[in-house]
């Protein structure tokens, strides 16, 4: 299709034509399937642009960033754990114990990525006390210890 026809259709789509221009555009549309397809594409693109404009009113890029960053560390940790699997077991267990003790002190729980079969790899409770009530093949339950009085743990070891 010629550029002149495309411009005519764009102007028709945008409502910029006078009656003669509209008549020419309609005549073109009635005779030319390509012209009808082009107009349909213009309408589709216009609709998508309107949707994007509506959705883009409050871009929330921070969500993406804040979820991605810790996960990158988790992937590195998993890769590192695979590399370290050749170390003697007692060294690995000792390092894991020290890391877990340090993590509890600073409010983060870094859970070894393999061995126990648990799901949790990284946890940040923003300074609040937290306990992993269950982490096995049946379920994983992360419970923050700021629950209302009527809801308390039934089992476990670290509730105050």
């Amino acid at each position, binding site marked *: 299709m010629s550029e002149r026809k495309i*411009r005519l259709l*764009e*102007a028709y789509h*945008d409502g*910029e034509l006078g009656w003669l221009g509209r008549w020419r555009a309609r005549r073109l549309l009635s005779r030319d399937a390509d012209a009808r397809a082009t107009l349909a*594409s213009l309408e589709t*693109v216009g609709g*998508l*642009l309107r949707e994007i404009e509506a959705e883009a009113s409050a871009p*929330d890029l921070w*969500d*993406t960033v*804040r*979820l*991605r960053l*810790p*996960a990158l560390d*988790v*992937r590195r940790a998993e890769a590192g754990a695979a590399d370290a699997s050749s170390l003697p077991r007692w060294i690995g267990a000792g390092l894991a114990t020290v890391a877990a003790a340090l993590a509890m002190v600073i409010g983060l729980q870094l859970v070894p*990525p*393999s061995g126990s079969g648990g*799901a*949790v*790899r*990284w*946890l*940040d*409770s*923003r300074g*609040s006390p*937290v306990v992993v*009530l*269950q982490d096995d*093949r*049946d*379920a*994983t*339950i*992360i*419970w*923050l210890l*700021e*629950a*209302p*009085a*009527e*809801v*308390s*743990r*039934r*089992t*476990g070891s670290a509730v105050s």
Partner: protein
Amino acid sequence: MQSAESTSASRHARALRGALLLLLTALLATAALGQSAAVTLDVMVVHTSGAEGGVADDPRARKADGILGRQIKYKSLKVVDSKRRKVALNEIWKVMLPNGKHFLVQPLDLADNGLLVAVDLEGSAQVDARIKKKTPFVVGPQNYQGGSLSVILEANY
């Protein structure tokens, strides 16, 4: 008759639209590729409290009770919301909770040992976990209407 200024503006608008058309095509193609690596996520929001009421007569509530009942003490349980969605890897699914806070989940990596997800219960905790297929992953609680809200996440892939 249109002024030269408005004609020029229309020309610019058309050029911009052409560029956006190309960009959209590229984005749609990328999105189509990304959709091929997607997982189905189920999110169930459960309200528990110490008030009498028992477990709601609802299969979802009975399932939630089976998950929470062994670990948490409560006298009533009901499911206040449940959603299912196919989520592409690296996409963030944001679920609004009844208390106005958000639960965010982002599937990141699918491997033999499970699906790596990043989870954020707004104002409470951020967790990364590698969850197995159809194994419930619970984060909670958040205060709500005299009780607690917990979120149960399950992945199917």
